[in-house]
């Protein structure tokens, strides 16, 4: 399997930053991530691509102790709440001392790196943590 990019339509680079993309329904205002073709709330099809807020807070997290293809254990995943009401699920770049309510931001990175190739996408970095 060649190297791949996760959901290239759901994010873009903005200089050194990574911006996650959602669709916003121009009829009812609903935001949906990843981008969709029709609004799941009102079926509107007049949709605008909008950037999601880069920063959010951890809603819940878990450290998983079972390795996955191209992911060494332990690693952590979290639900992250963004200020616009979106809730995303994703990997935490670091998780030592991270608790629900802590701030994180979306950054670019390698999600999987193994014999099957790499998967590049986004993950969440605790804000204020040492790099």
């Amino acid at each position: 399997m060649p190297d791949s990019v996760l959901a290239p339509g759901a994010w873009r680079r903005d200089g050194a930053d990574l911006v996650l993309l959602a669709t916003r329904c121009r009829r009812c205002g609903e935001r949906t991530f990843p981008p969709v073709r029709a609004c799941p709330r009102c079926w509107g099809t007049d949709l605008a691509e909008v950037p999601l807020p880069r920063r959010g807070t951890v809603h819940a997290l878990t450290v998983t102790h079972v390795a996955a293809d191209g992911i060494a254990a332990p690693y952590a995943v979290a639900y992250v709440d963004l200020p616009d009401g979106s809730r995303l699920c994703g990997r935490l770049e670091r998780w030592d001392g991270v608790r629900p309510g802590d701030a994180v931001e979306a950054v670019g990175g390698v999600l999987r790196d193994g014999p099957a190739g790499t998967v590049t996408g986004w993950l969440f970095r605790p804000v204020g943590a040492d790099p």
Partner: protein
Amino acid sequence: MIPAQVLGVGMTPFARRAEGTVEDLAAAAGLDALVSSGVTAADVDAVYCGNVYGGMLPAQRIAARLGLTGRPGYNLEAACSSSAVAFHLAVHAVRTGLYDTVLVLGVEKLSTFGGGTLRLNPDDLDVAQGVTMPAVYAMRARSYLDATGATVEDLAEVAVKNRGNGARNPRAQFRAAPTLPEVLESRPVADPLTLLQCTGSGDGAAAAVVSRHVGDRRPVTVTASRFSSGTTGAHDLAREPLTSRVVADAYTDAGITADDVDVIELHDAFSIAELLYYEALGLCGFGEAPDLLRSGRTRRDGRCAVNRGGGLLARGHPIGATGLAQVVEVVEWLRDPPEHDGGRADTGLTHCTGGGITGYDHAACSIHVLAGG
């Protein structure tokens, strides 16, 4: 509406690695169901099969082993809810008069993958991030504990109960009855869930014959058959709205309330799930599930026995077979409840979810209510 009866059921033992192919396992369970129903191949109008990983056309492959070719064979996939959906569609076909008698099958051979957590769609956004089923339930557990003040011991008590039940079920894959410390001290999988709080990978098959006809044995009628997909968006992880919504319709259809249910097989893929589903099924209020568990009401000899067969935790979880395995356990109990286990039961419920994709609370939830005559 024509009442749909379960005439007979069959099930292989669930095992980490079963001898035989998908066809072998499902044909064995199917033949048991057909023989115990007293029907012949000529009586079977259609075959419904739930399966996820077994390749193309399992209904047709299995039908070839059972002399059931030359009639419709439907293949249904809804992750862990696959054979519950097959059962749901079979029930509706009988109720509407489309078919008189059908065979429903559920089968899976997860040993093909060599163990480990369930193989999810690698193109899914969450899955690519490293999200696994244990991780999803671990975050639900953490949210529930934070919201209610429940403890990791409360979670582990679910595994103690259900694995204790499994130790008495000759078809269960896991036959050990661990203590609370053994559950808590088993190796961590996804915090706060430990290994013995997670179902395991395995093989097995289950089957049922659904018919408009009433057989010679104590009749079991399907009084509710409901299925729905979940919804996307931000959900309260400490609650289970999909199950609440589906069961409300099921109780209405069956003309019962939660208090009327004598026996339940619910989708305890992980310990936390059983606590969430007690509340979602209306057995108790929010945050009260640990008290309900401690009260003994859901023990095998309790007023509402939950997962007498060991549940997914102990019976095992060959995912395509689980929905029907629940039906098998409940039908057998309604037909022949051992007196020493609490007397005659007449209302049973099965609850089976399917998930593992981005954005949903759960992707799918099937609920059936079965009434003994």
